[in-house]
Protein backbone atom coordinates (compact mmCIF):
# COMPACT_ATOMS: atom_id res chain seq x y z
CA UNK A 1 0.00 0.00 0.00
CA UNK A 2 2.77 2.41 1.02
CA UNK A 3 4.45 1.85 -2.35
CA UNK A 4 1.39 3.06 -4.25
CA UNK A 5 0.96 6.07 -2.00
CA UNK A 6 4.58 7.07 -2.55
CA UNK A 7 4.33 6.45 -6.31
CA UNK A 8 1.19 8.59 -6.41
CA UNK A 9 2.85 11.39 -4.43
CA UNK A 10 5.83 11.37 -6.77
CA UNK A 11 3.57 11.64 -9.79
CA UNK A 12 1.45 14.35 -8.21
CA UNK A 13 4.51 16.29 -7.17
CA UNK A 14 5.75 16.35 -10.76
CA UNK A 15 2.32 17.47 -11.95
CA UNK A 16 1.92 20.10 -9.21
CA UNK A 17 5.36 21.51 -9.70
CA UNK A 18 4.60 21.72 -13.42
CA UNK A 19 7.59 19.47 -14.22
CA UNK A 20 5.27 17.02 -15.93
CA UNK A 21 3.57 19.68 -18.03
CA UNK A 22 6.82 21.36 -18.95
CA UNK A 23 8.31 18.05 -20.05
CA UNK A 24 5.16 17.36 -22.02
CA UNK A 25 5.28 20.78 -23.65
CA UNK A 26 8.96 20.32 -24.49
CA UNK A 27 8.16 16.90 -25.98
CA UNK A 28 5.36 18.31 -28.11
CA UNK A 29 7.60 21.17 -29.25
CA UNK A 30 10.21 18.60 -30.21
CA UNK A 31 7.67 16.65 -32.25
CA UNK A 32 6.40 19.82 -33.88
CA UNK A 33 9.93 20.78 -34.88
CA UNK A 34 10.60 17.33 -36.25
CA UNK A 35 7.31 17.34 -38.15
CA UNK A 36 8.03 20.74 -39.67
CA UNK A 37 11.53 19.73 -40.73
CA UNK A 38 10.30 16.48 -42.23
CA UNK A 39 7.49 18.25 -44.02
CA UNK A 40 9.84 20.60 -45.87
CA UNK A 41 12.30 17.83 -46.54
CA UNK A 42 9.63 15.65 -48.11
CA UNK A 43 8.27 18.52 -50.14
CA UNK A 44 11.70 19.29 -51.50
CA UNK A 45 12.54 15.66 -52.28
CA UNK A 46 9.22 15.13 -54.04
CA UNK A 47 9.81 18.29 -56.12
CA UNK A 48 13.19 16.94 -57.19
CA UNK A 49 11.57 13.72 -58.37
CA UNK A 50 13.66 11.43 -56.17
CA UNK A 51 13.43 7.66 -56.64
CA UNK A 52 10.88 6.03 -54.33
CA UNK A 53 13.45 3.78 -52.68
CA UNK A 54 15.54 6.78 -51.65
CA UNK A 55 12.43 8.71 -50.77
CA UNK A 56 11.91 6.14 -48.02
CA UNK A 57 15.53 6.13 -46.83
CA UNK A 58 15.78 9.82 -46.11
CA UNK A 59 12.79 10.13 -43.77
CA UNK A 60 13.97 6.84 -42.28
CA UNK A 61 17.35 8.41 -41.52
CA UNK A 62 15.66 11.50 -40.11
CA UNK A 63 13.52 9.26 -37.94
CA UNK A 64 16.65 7.60 -36.55
CA UNK A 65 18.22 10.97 -35.75
CA UNK A 66 14.96 11.97 -34.08
CA UNK A 67 14.89 8.76 -32.07
CA UNK A 68 18.48 9.33 -31.00
CA UNK A 69 17.53 12.79 -29.77
CA UNK A 70 14.56 11.27 -27.94
CA UNK A 71 16.86 8.73 -26.34
CA UNK A 72 19.21 11.41 -25.06
CA UNK A 73 16.34 13.63 -23.96
CA UNK A 74 14.72 10.79 -22.03
CA UNK A 75 17.94 9.89 -20.24
CA UNK A 76 18.72 13.49 -19.30
CA UNK A 77 15.14 14.23 -18.24
CA UNK A 78 15.01 11.08 -16.12
CA UNK A 79 18.18 12.05 -14.29
CA UNK A 80 17.19 15.69 -13.85
CA UNK A 81 13.68 15.00 -12.62
CA UNK A 82 14.67 12.33 -10.09
CA UNK A 83 18.07 13.62 -8.99
CA UNK A 84 16.77 15.51 -5.95
CA UNK A 85 14.10 13.14 -4.75
CA UNK A 86 16.12 11.20 -2.18
CA UNK A 87 19.16 13.39 -1.51
CA UNK A 88 17.06 16.56 -1.40
CA UNK A 89 14.52 15.17 1.02
CA UNK A 90 17.24 13.71 3.21
CA UNK A 91 19.11 17.02 3.29
CA UNK A 92 16.02 19.11 4.04
CA UNK A 93 14.65 16.66 6.62
CA UNK A 94 11.42 16.27 4.67
CA UNK A 95 11.98 12.54 4.65
CA UNK A 96 11.77 12.35 8.45
CA UNK A 97 8.03 12.81 8.64
CA UNK A 98 7.55 10.05 6.04
CA UNK A 99 10.16 7.61 7.32
CA UNK A 100 8.56 7.59 10.78
CA UNK A 101 5.23 6.43 9.36
CA UNK A 102 4.35 2.74 9.45
CA UNK A 103 5.83 1.82 6.10
CA UNK A 104 9.18 0.11 5.61
CA UNK A 105 11.83 2.25 3.99
CA UNK A 106 12.12 0.04 0.93
CA UNK A 107 8.56 1.04 0.09
CA UNK A 108 9.54 4.71 0.10
CA UNK A 109 12.35 4.08 -2.39
CA UNK A 110 10.43 1.68 -4.61
CA UNK A 111 7.30 3.84 -4.55
CA UNK A 112 9.23 6.90 -5.67
CA UNK A 113 11.09 4.85 -8.24
CA UNK A 114 7.84 3.55 -9.67
CA UNK A 115 6.41 7.06 -9.88
CA UNK A 116 9.40 8.26 -11.90
CA UNK A 117 9.50 5.08 -13.99
CA UNK A 118 5.83 5.62 -14.89
CA UNK A 119 6.53 9.21 -15.93
CA UNK A 120 9.56 8.19 -17.96
CA UNK A 121 7.52 5.47 -19.69
CA UNK A 122 4.76 7.92 -20.56
CA UNK A 123 7.27 10.49 -21.84
CA UNK A 124 9.17 7.97 -23.93
CA UNK A 125 5.92 6.45 -25.20
CA UNK A 126 4.63 9.84 -26.26
CA UNK A 127 7.80 10.79 -28.10
CA UNK A 128 8.56 7.45 -29.75
CA UNK A 129 4.89 6.99 -30.65
CA UNK A 130 4.60 10.59 -31.83
CA UNK A 131 7.68 10.62 -34.03
CA UNK A 132 6.68 7.34 -35.69
CA UNK A 133 3.17 8.64 -36.26
CA UNK A 134 4.57 11.78 -37.89
CA UNK A 135 6.94 9.96 -40.26
CA UNK A 136 4.21 7.48 -41.10
CA UNK A 137 1.74 10.26 -41.75
CA UNK A 138 4.16 12.18 -44.00
CA UNK A 139 6.23 9.47 -45.63
CA UNK A 140 4.58 6.14 -44.82
CA UNK A 141 7.74 5.17 -42.94
CA UNK A 142 8.04 3.86 -39.40
CA UNK A 143 10.93 2.46 -37.45
CA UNK A 144 11.59 -1.18 -38.25
CA UNK A 145 10.96 -2.87 -34.89
CA UNK A 146 9.38 -0.25 -32.67
CA UNK A 147 8.44 -2.49 -29.69
CA UNK A 148 11.95 -3.88 -29.37
CA UNK A 149 13.53 -0.48 -29.82
CA UNK A 150 11.15 1.04 -27.32
CA UNK A 151 11.86 -1.72 -24.79
CA UNK A 152 15.62 -1.13 -25.07
CA UNK A 153 15.26 2.66 -24.75
CA UNK A 154 12.95 2.11 -21.80
CA UNK A 155 15.55 -0.11 -20.15
CA UNK A 156 18.07 2.68 -20.67
CA UNK A 157 15.76 5.10 -18.85
CA UNK A 158 15.22 2.62 -16.04
CA UNK A 159 18.97 2.06 -15.80
CA UNK A 160 19.69 5.77 -15.36
CA UNK A 161 16.79 6.15 -12.94
CA UNK A 162 18.13 3.35 -10.75
CA UNK A 163 21.67 4.71 -10.88
CA UNK A 164 20.40 8.17 -9.90
CA UNK A 165 18.53 6.62 -6.98
CA UNK A 166 21.64 4.73 -5.95
CA UNK A 167 23.79 7.86 -5.84
CA UNK A 168 20.94 9.79 -4.23
CA UNK A 169 21.04 7.60 -1.14
CA UNK A 170 24.59 8.69 -0.41
CA UNK A 171 25.53 11.92 -2.15
CA UNK A 172 24.12 15.41 -2.34
CA UNK A 173 21.84 16.35 -5.21
CA UNK A 174 24.57 18.11 -7.14
CA UNK A 175 27.11 15.30 -6.75
CA UNK A 176 24.43 12.81 -7.72
CA UNK A 177 23.63 14.71 -10.90
CA UNK A 178 27.29 15.11 -11.82
CA UNK A 179 27.93 11.40 -11.30
CA UNK A 180 24.88 10.15 -13.18
CA UNK A 181 25.25 12.49 -16.16
CA UNK A 182 29.02 12.00 -16.11
CA UNK A 183 28.48 8.28 -16.57
CA UNK A 184 26.07 8.96 -19.44
CA UNK A 185 28.70 11.15 -21.10
CA UNK A 186 31.34 8.49 -20.60
CA UNK A 187 29.10 5.87 -22.18
CA UNK A 188 28.24 8.21 -25.05
CA UNK A 189 31.88 8.88 -25.88
CA UNK A 190 32.86 5.24 -25.34
CA UNK A 191 30.09 4.16 -27.71
CA UNK A 192 31.33 6.38 -30.52
CA UNK A 193 34.97 5.39 -29.96
CA UNK A 194 33.89 1.78 -30.25
CA UNK A 195 31.93 2.51 -33.45
CA UNK A 196 34.77 4.33 -35.10
CA UNK A 197 37.24 1.73 -33.87
CA UNK A 198 35.14 -1.03 -35.41
CA UNK A 199 34.80 0.84 -38.70
CA UNK A 200 38.59 1.27 -38.89
CA UNK A 201 39.37 -2.17 -37.47
CA UNK A 202 41.11 -0.73 -34.40
CA UNK A 203 40.68 -3.38 -31.73
CA UNK A 204 42.02 -1.26 -28.89
CA UNK A 205 39.49 1.47 -29.61
CA UNK A 206 36.72 -1.14 -29.61
CA UNK A 207 37.97 -2.39 -26.27
CA UNK A 208 37.91 1.13 -24.86
CA UNK A 209 34.26 1.33 -25.90
CA UNK A 210 33.49 -2.02 -24.28
CA UNK A 211 35.08 -0.92 -21.02
CA UNK A 212 32.98 2.27 -21.14
CA UNK A 213 29.88 0.12 -21.72
CA UNK A 214 30.75 -2.01 -18.73
CA UNK A 215 31.01 1.11 -16.59
CA UNK A 216 27.70 2.40 -17.94
CA UNK A 217 25.86 0.36 -20.57
CA UNK A 218 23.38 3.09 -21.55
CA UNK A 219 24.85 3.82 -24.99
CA UNK A 220 25.11 0.09 -25.72
CA UNK A 221 21.37 -0.16 -25.13
CA UNK A 222 20.75 2.69 -27.54
CA UNK A 223 22.85 1.03 -30.21
CA UNK A 224 20.88 -2.20 -29.81
CA UNK A 225 17.69 -0.15 -29.99
CA UNK A 226 18.93 1.70 -33.10
CA UNK A 227 19.84 -1.58 -34.71
CA UNK A 228 16.35 -2.90 -34.07
CA UNK A 229 14.64 0.23 -35.33
CA UNK A 230 16.57 1.27 -38.41
CA UNK A 231 15.70 -0.11 -41.79
CA UNK A 232 17.57 -3.37 -42.48
CA UNK A 233 18.83 -1.89 -45.72
CA UNK A 234 20.50 1.08 -44.03
CA UNK A 235 21.98 -1.28 -41.47
CA UNK A 236 23.42 -3.56 -44.11
CA UNK A 237 24.79 -0.79 -46.26
CA UNK A 238 26.56 0.83 -43.34
CA UNK A 239 25.33 4.18 -44.56
CA UNK A 240 23.86 5.36 -41.31
CA UNK A 241 25.73 6.51 -38.21
CA UNK A 242 23.67 3.89 -36.34
CA UNK A 243 24.71 1.03 -38.55
CA UNK A 244 26.46 -0.50 -35.61
CA UNK A 245 29.65 -1.73 -37.06
CA UNK A 246 30.23 -3.17 -33.61
CA UNK A 247 26.80 -4.17 -32.33
CA UNK A 248 26.70 -4.73 -28.56
CA UNK A 249 25.92 -8.35 -27.74
CA UNK A 250 22.74 -9.54 -26.10
CA UNK A 251 24.90 -10.28 -23.06
CA UNK A 252 25.46 -6.53 -22.80
CA UNK A 253 21.67 -5.99 -22.71
CA UNK A 254 21.32 -8.61 -19.98
CA UNK A 255 24.24 -6.97 -18.17
CA UNK A 256 22.44 -3.61 -18.35
CA UNK A 257 19.32 -5.22 -16.88
CA UNK A 258 21.31 -6.72 -14.02
CA UNK A 259 23.15 -3.40 -13.58
CA UNK A 260 19.82 -1.54 -13.20
CA UNK A 261 18.41 -4.15 -10.82
CA UNK A 262 21.54 -4.09 -8.66
CA UNK A 263 21.64 -0.29 -8.60
CA UNK A 264 18.05 -0.24 -7.37
CA UNK A 265 18.68 -3.05 -4.92
CA UNK A 266 21.66 -1.27 -3.38
CA UNK A 267 19.75 2.03 -3.37
CA UNK A 268 17.02 0.37 -1.30
CA UNK A 269 19.54 -1.32 0.93
CA UNK A 270 21.57 1.78 1.60
CA UNK A 271 18.50 3.92 2.19
CA UNK A 272 17.09 1.31 4.58
CA UNK A 273 20.28 1.28 6.62
CA UNK A 274 21.34 4.88 6.61
CA UNK A 275 20.65 7.52 9.25
CA UNK A 276 18.07 10.08 8.27
Amino acid at each position, binding site marked *: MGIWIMAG*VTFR*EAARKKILWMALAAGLAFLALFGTGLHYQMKDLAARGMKPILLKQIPGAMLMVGLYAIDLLTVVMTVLVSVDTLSGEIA*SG*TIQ*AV*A*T*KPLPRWQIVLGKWMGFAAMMTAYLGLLVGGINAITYGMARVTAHNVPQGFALMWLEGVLLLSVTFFFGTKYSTLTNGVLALGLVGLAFLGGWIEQIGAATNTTSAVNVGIVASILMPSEALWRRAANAMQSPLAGMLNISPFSSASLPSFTMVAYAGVYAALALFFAVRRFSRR*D*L
Partner: protein
Amino acid sequence: MMQAGESASTTAGQIAAQPAADLAIATRGLRKVFDGKVAVRSLTLEVPRGEIFGFLGPNGAGKSTSLKMLLGLVRPTRGQATVLACPAGDVRTRRKIGFLPEHFRFYDWLTSAELLRLHGRLYGMSRDRLRRKIPELLDLVGLAEHAGKRLRDFSKGMLQRIGLAQALLNDPELIFLDEPTSGLDPAGRRLVRDIIKAQRQRGATVLLNSHLLSEVEITCDRVAFIKHGEVIETRDLKSLLEGQTTVRVHAANLTPEMAAGVERWASSVALQDHQLTLSVPSREVLPQVLRYLVSRGAEIYEFTPQRLSLEERFLEIVGSDGGL
Protein backbone atom coordinates in the same frame (compact mmCIF):
# COMPACT_ATOMS: atom_id res chain seq x y z
CA MET B 1 28.14 -0.15 36.91
CA MET B 2 24.98 1.82 37.25
CA GLN B 3 24.26 4.45 34.66
CA ALA B 4 23.65 8.05 35.66
CA GLY B 5 20.07 7.91 34.48
CA GLU B 6 19.40 4.76 36.45
CA SER B 7 20.62 6.09 39.75
CA ALA B 8 18.71 9.32 39.30
CA SER B 9 15.53 7.47 38.48
CA THR B 10 15.88 5.45 41.59
CA THR B 11 16.48 8.47 43.77
CA ALA B 12 13.45 10.14 42.28
CA GLY B 13 11.57 7.06 43.44
CA GLN B 14 9.33 7.08 40.45
CA ILE B 15 9.99 4.35 38.07
CA ALA B 16 12.24 1.81 39.71
CA ALA B 17 11.61 -1.70 38.40
CA GLN B 18 8.72 -0.84 36.12
CA PRO B 19 7.47 -3.82 34.16
CA ALA B 20 8.48 -3.38 30.52
CA ALA B 21 4.86 -3.26 29.32
CA ASP B 22 4.16 -0.21 31.47
CA LEU B 23 6.99 1.70 29.94
CA ALA B 24 6.47 3.79 26.87
CA ILE B 25 10.22 4.15 26.40
CA ALA B 26 13.12 2.20 27.84
CA THR B 27 16.71 2.61 26.73
CA ARG B 28 19.90 1.13 28.04
CA GLY B 29 23.33 2.43 27.16
CA LEU B 30 22.15 3.88 23.86
CA ARG B 31 25.10 5.30 21.98
CA LYS B 32 25.59 7.02 18.66
CA VAL B 33 28.85 7.89 17.03
CA PHE B 34 28.87 9.84 13.75
CA ASP B 35 32.17 9.54 11.90
CA GLY B 36 34.13 9.16 15.09
CA LYS B 37 32.27 11.96 16.85
CA VAL B 38 30.20 10.91 19.82
CA ALA B 39 26.70 12.41 19.57
CA VAL B 40 25.09 10.36 22.31
CA ARG B 41 27.43 8.75 24.81
CA SER B 42 25.19 6.44 26.77
CA LEU B 43 21.52 7.11 27.17
CA THR B 44 19.70 5.16 29.81
CA LEU B 45 16.15 6.20 30.33
CA GLU B 46 12.75 4.91 31.34
CA VAL B 47 9.53 6.74 30.64
CA PRO B 48 6.32 5.19 31.99
CA ARG B 49 3.17 5.28 29.91
CA GLY B 50 0.98 8.30 30.39
CA GLU B 51 3.78 10.61 31.43
CA ILE B 52 4.71 13.96 29.95
CA PHE B 53 8.44 13.71 29.88
CA GLY B 54 10.81 16.58 29.16
CA PHE B 55 14.20 16.25 27.56
CA LEU B 56 16.43 19.08 28.68
CA GLY B 57 19.93 19.86 27.68
CA PRO B 58 22.12 22.42 26.01
CA ASN B 59 22.50 22.61 22.24
CA GLY B 60 24.48 19.70 20.95
CA ALA B 61 23.76 17.57 23.99
CA GLY B 62 22.37 14.82 21.77
CA LYS B 63 18.66 15.35 22.41
CA SER B 64 17.54 15.26 18.80
CA THR B 65 19.81 12.32 17.96
CA SER B 66 18.36 10.46 20.95
CA LEU B 67 14.85 11.14 19.70
CA LYS B 68 15.81 9.98 16.22
CA MET B 69 17.18 6.74 17.62
CA LEU B 70 13.93 6.13 19.46
CA LEU B 71 12.02 6.77 16.24
CA GLY B 72 14.22 4.49 14.16
CA LEU B 73 15.54 7.32 11.98
CA VAL B 74 19.06 6.87 13.28
CA ARG B 75 20.67 3.52 14.04
CA PRO B 76 22.32 3.32 17.44
CA THR B 77 25.98 2.40 17.42
CA ARG B 78 25.36 0.42 20.58
CA GLY B 79 22.77 -0.14 23.26
CA GLN B 80 19.13 -1.08 23.34
CA ALA B 81 15.91 0.83 23.07
CA THR B 82 12.32 -0.31 23.31
CA VAL B 83 9.40 1.88 22.44
CA LEU B 84 5.91 0.75 23.44
CA ALA B 85 7.42 -2.63 24.35
CA CYS B 86 8.84 -3.17 20.82
CA PRO B 87 12.34 -2.52 19.52
CA ALA B 88 12.78 1.13 18.54
CA GLY B 89 11.97 1.73 14.89
CA ASP B 90 9.61 -1.26 14.60
CA VAL B 91 7.40 -0.55 11.59
CA ARG B 92 4.10 -1.73 13.10
CA THR B 93 4.67 0.17 16.34
CA ARG B 94 4.89 3.38 14.31
CA ARG B 95 1.13 3.21 13.87
CA LYS B 96 0.88 4.22 17.52
CA ILE B 97 3.46 6.99 17.35
CA GLY B 98 3.18 10.62 16.42
CA PHE B 99 6.22 12.77 15.64
CA LEU B 100 6.76 16.44 15.10
CA PRO B 101 10.31 16.93 13.76
CA GLU B 102 12.30 19.91 14.95
CA HIS B 103 12.13 21.71 11.63
CA PHE B 104 8.91 20.42 10.21
CA ARG B 105 9.19 20.32 6.47
CA PHE B 106 6.95 18.64 4.05
CA TYR B 107 6.02 18.77 0.41
CA ASP B 108 5.17 22.44 0.17
CA TRP B 109 3.10 21.94 -2.94
CA LEU B 110 0.41 20.24 -0.86
CA THR B 111 -2.42 22.08 0.87
CA SER B 112 -2.75 21.56 4.60
CA ALA B 113 -5.75 19.24 4.17
CA GLU B 114 -3.90 17.24 1.51
CA LEU B 115 -0.89 16.94 3.75
CA LEU B 116 -2.99 15.49 6.55
CA ARG B 117 -4.76 13.15 4.12
CA LEU B 118 -1.44 11.88 2.80
CA HIS B 119 -0.05 11.31 6.28
CA GLY B 120 -3.27 9.64 7.34
CA ARG B 121 -3.04 7.27 4.42
CA LEU B 122 0.57 6.51 5.30
CA TYR B 123 -0.73 5.62 8.77
CA GLY B 124 -3.20 3.27 7.07
CA MET B 125 -6.24 5.28 8.21
CA SER B 126 -9.53 4.78 6.38
CA ARG B 127 -10.95 7.53 4.19
CA ASP B 128 -14.00 7.83 6.45
CA ARG B 129 -11.90 8.31 9.53
CA LEU B 130 -9.78 10.89 7.75
CA ARG B 131 -12.83 12.78 6.57
CA ARG B 132 -13.82 13.24 10.19
CA LYS B 133 -10.38 13.69 11.63
CA ILE B 134 -8.87 16.26 9.26
CA PRO B 135 -11.35 19.14 9.86
CA GLU B 136 -11.24 18.36 13.56
CA LEU B 137 -7.44 18.65 13.69
CA LEU B 138 -7.27 21.72 11.47
CA ASP B 139 -9.72 23.33 13.83
CA LEU B 140 -7.71 22.25 16.86
CA VAL B 141 -4.52 23.88 15.58
CA GLY B 142 -6.33 26.97 14.35
CA LEU B 143 -5.88 26.32 10.64
CA ALA B 144 -9.49 25.54 9.69
CA GLU B 145 -9.59 28.56 7.43
CA HIS B 146 -6.41 27.50 5.67
CA ALA B 147 -7.41 23.96 4.72
CA GLY B 148 -7.01 24.73 1.02
CA LYS B 149 -3.87 26.81 1.29
CA ARG B 150 -0.58 25.43 0.06
CA LEU B 151 2.18 24.92 2.59
CA ARG B 152 4.57 27.07 0.57
CA ASP B 153 2.44 30.05 1.54
CA PHE B 154 2.52 29.16 5.23
CA SER B 155 4.47 31.09 7.85
CA LYS B 156 6.88 29.25 10.13
CA GLY B 157 4.29 29.23 12.91
CA MET B 158 1.62 27.85 10.61
CA LEU B 159 3.95 25.08 9.47
CA GLN B 160 4.60 24.22 13.09
CA ARG B 161 0.86 24.02 13.69
CA ILE B 162 0.21 21.76 10.71
CA GLY B 163 3.16 19.63 11.80
CA LEU B 164 1.56 19.28 15.19
CA ALA B 165 -1.74 18.27 13.59
CA GLN B 166 -0.03 15.52 11.59
CA ALA B 167 1.63 14.26 14.77
CA LEU B 168 -1.83 13.79 16.32
CA LEU B 169 -3.60 12.29 13.28
CA ASN B 170 -3.58 8.69 14.44
CA ASP B 171 -4.49 9.37 18.09
CA PRO B 172 -1.01 8.17 19.01
CA GLU B 173 -0.13 6.42 22.24
CA LEU B 174 3.27 8.06 22.22
CA ILE B 175 4.06 11.48 20.81
CA PHE B 176 7.52 12.85 20.17
CA LEU B 177 7.60 16.62 20.00
CA ASP B 178 10.95 18.08 19.03
CA GLU B 179 10.96 21.79 19.88
CA PRO B 180 7.21 22.14 19.24
CA THR B 181 7.01 25.79 20.21
CA SER B 182 9.86 27.10 18.10
CA GLY B 183 8.48 29.59 15.64
CA LEU B 184 5.25 30.01 17.56
CA ASP B 185 3.87 33.21 19.01
CA PRO B 186 2.54 33.25 22.60
CA ALA B 187 -0.91 32.13 21.44
CA GLY B 188 0.68 29.24 19.57
CA ARG B 189 2.68 28.26 22.62
CA ARG B 190 -0.43 28.27 24.70
CA LEU B 191 -2.05 26.05 22.11
CA VAL B 192 0.80 23.55 22.34
CA ARG B 193 0.50 23.49 26.11
CA ASP B 194 -3.24 22.88 25.88
CA ILE B 195 -2.75 20.13 23.34
CA ILE B 196 -0.17 18.43 25.52
CA LYS B 197 -2.54 18.63 28.47
CA ALA B 198 -5.32 17.11 26.39
CA GLN B 199 -2.99 14.29 25.38
CA ARG B 200 -2.20 13.62 29.00
CA GLN B 201 -5.91 13.36 29.77
CA ARG B 202 -6.28 10.94 26.88
CA GLY B 203 -3.60 8.79 28.51
CA ALA B 204 -0.94 9.37 25.87
CA THR B 205 2.74 9.62 26.64
CA VAL B 206 4.52 12.71 25.41
CA LEU B 207 8.24 13.13 25.04
CA LEU B 208 8.94 16.81 24.78
CA ASN B 209 12.28 18.04 23.59
CA SER B 210 12.54 21.73 24.24
CA HIS B 211 15.10 24.29 25.12
CA LEU B 212 12.36 26.57 26.43
CA LEU B 213 12.60 25.69 30.07
CA SER B 214 9.47 27.58 31.04
CA GLU B 215 7.48 25.40 28.64
CA VAL B 216 8.89 22.27 30.15
CA GLU B 217 8.23 23.60 33.63
CA ILE B 218 4.57 24.14 32.88
CA THR B 219 3.84 20.99 30.95
CA CYS B 220 6.07 18.15 32.08
CA ASP B 221 5.74 15.62 34.88
CA ARG B 222 9.38 14.65 34.82
CA VAL B 223 12.51 15.83 33.12
CA ALA B 224 15.82 14.32 32.14
CA PHE B 225 18.84 16.60 32.11
CA ILE B 226 21.14 15.64 29.30
CA LYS B 227 24.71 16.68 28.87
CA HIS B 228 27.28 15.27 26.46
CA GLY B 229 24.79 12.67 25.33
CA GLU B 230 24.21 11.27 28.75
CA VAL B 231 21.38 11.55 31.24
CA ILE B 232 22.85 13.47 34.15
CA GLU B 233 19.71 13.28 36.20
CA THR B 234 16.02 12.49 35.85
CA ARG B 235 13.80 14.31 38.27
CA ASP B 236 10.22 14.69 39.21
CA LEU B 237 9.41 18.30 38.40
CA LYS B 238 7.33 18.81 41.50
CA SER B 239 10.12 17.73 43.80
CA LEU B 240 12.61 19.67 41.75
CA LEU B 241 10.78 22.92 42.26
CA GLU B 242 9.83 22.35 45.87
CA GLY B 243 12.02 23.05 48.87
CA GLN B 244 13.93 26.18 49.67
CA THR B 245 11.93 29.23 48.65
CA THR B 246 13.03 32.83 48.69
CA VAL B 247 10.39 35.45 49.50
CA ARG B 248 10.49 39.12 48.66
CA VAL B 249 8.35 41.42 50.81
CA HIS B 250 7.63 44.99 49.85
CA ALA B 251 6.06 46.92 52.70
CA ALA B 252 5.93 50.18 54.62
CA ASN B 253 6.83 50.40 58.30
CA LEU B 254 9.35 47.58 58.21
CA THR B 255 11.67 47.56 61.21
CA PRO B 256 14.87 45.68 62.13
CA GLU B 257 12.88 44.04 64.97
CA MET B 258 10.49 42.55 62.46
CA ALA B 259 13.45 41.23 60.47
CA ALA B 260 14.83 39.62 63.59
CA GLY B 261 11.36 38.27 64.41
CA VAL B 262 10.94 36.35 61.15
CA GLU B 263 14.20 34.57 61.75
CA ARG B 264 12.33 31.93 63.74
CA TRP B 265 10.96 30.65 60.35
CA ALA B 266 13.42 31.98 57.89
CA SER B 267 17.12 32.26 57.18
CA SER B 268 19.12 34.76 55.12
CA VAL B 269 16.88 37.63 56.20
CA ALA B 270 17.86 41.00 54.76
CA LEU B 271 16.14 44.35 55.22
CA GLN B 272 16.75 47.26 52.93
CA ASP B 273 14.44 50.30 53.05
CA HIS B 274 10.99 48.99 52.17
CA GLN B 275 12.14 45.59 51.06
CA LEU B 276 12.66 42.46 53.10
CA THR B 277 14.03 39.27 51.58
CA LEU B 278 14.06 35.99 53.39
CA SER B 279 14.47 32.33 52.65
CA VAL B 280 12.20 29.62 54.06
CA PRO B 281 12.80 25.86 54.03
CA SER B 282 9.20 25.12 53.02
CA ARG B 283 6.31 27.07 51.57
CA GLU B 284 4.11 25.87 54.43
CA VAL B 285 5.46 28.49 56.82
CA LEU B 286 4.62 31.41 54.53
CA PRO B 287 1.16 32.17 56.04
CA GLN B 288 2.76 32.40 59.50
CA VAL B 289 5.42 34.80 58.29
CA LEU B 290 2.80 36.97 56.64
CA ARG B 291 0.54 36.94 59.69
CA TYR B 292 3.46 37.89 61.94
CA LEU B 293 4.46 40.87 59.80
CA VAL B 294 0.89 42.17 59.58
CA SER B 295 0.38 41.77 63.34
CA ARG B 296 3.51 43.87 63.93
CA GLY B 297 2.15 46.71 61.84
CA ALA B 298 3.82 46.21 58.49
CA GLU B 299 1.77 47.54 55.61
CA ILE B 300 2.35 44.99 52.92
CA TYR B 301 2.11 45.83 49.22
CA GLU B 302 3.79 42.76 47.90
CA PHE B 303 4.64 39.31 49.25
CA THR B 304 6.20 37.20 46.51
CA PRO B 305 7.62 33.72 46.91
CA GLN B 306 10.44 33.35 44.39
CA ARG B 307 10.49 29.74 43.35
CA LEU B 308 13.78 28.36 42.20
CA SER B 309 13.15 28.28 38.49
CA LEU B 310 13.92 25.35 36.31
CA GLU B 311 16.46 27.53 34.59
CA GLU B 312 18.49 27.99 37.74
CA ARG B 313 18.23 24.29 38.43
CA PHE B 314 19.19 23.55 34.85
CA LEU B 315 22.30 25.70 35.10
CA GLU B 316 23.11 24.12 38.43
CA ILE B 317 22.91 20.60 37.02
CA VAL B 318 24.18 21.07 33.49
CA GLY B 319 26.65 23.83 34.27
CA SER B 320 26.78 27.38 33.06
CA ASP B 321 29.10 26.41 30.21
CA GLY B 322 26.02 24.85 28.65
CA GLY B 323 27.75 21.52 28.62
CA LEU B 324 29.94 22.47 25.71
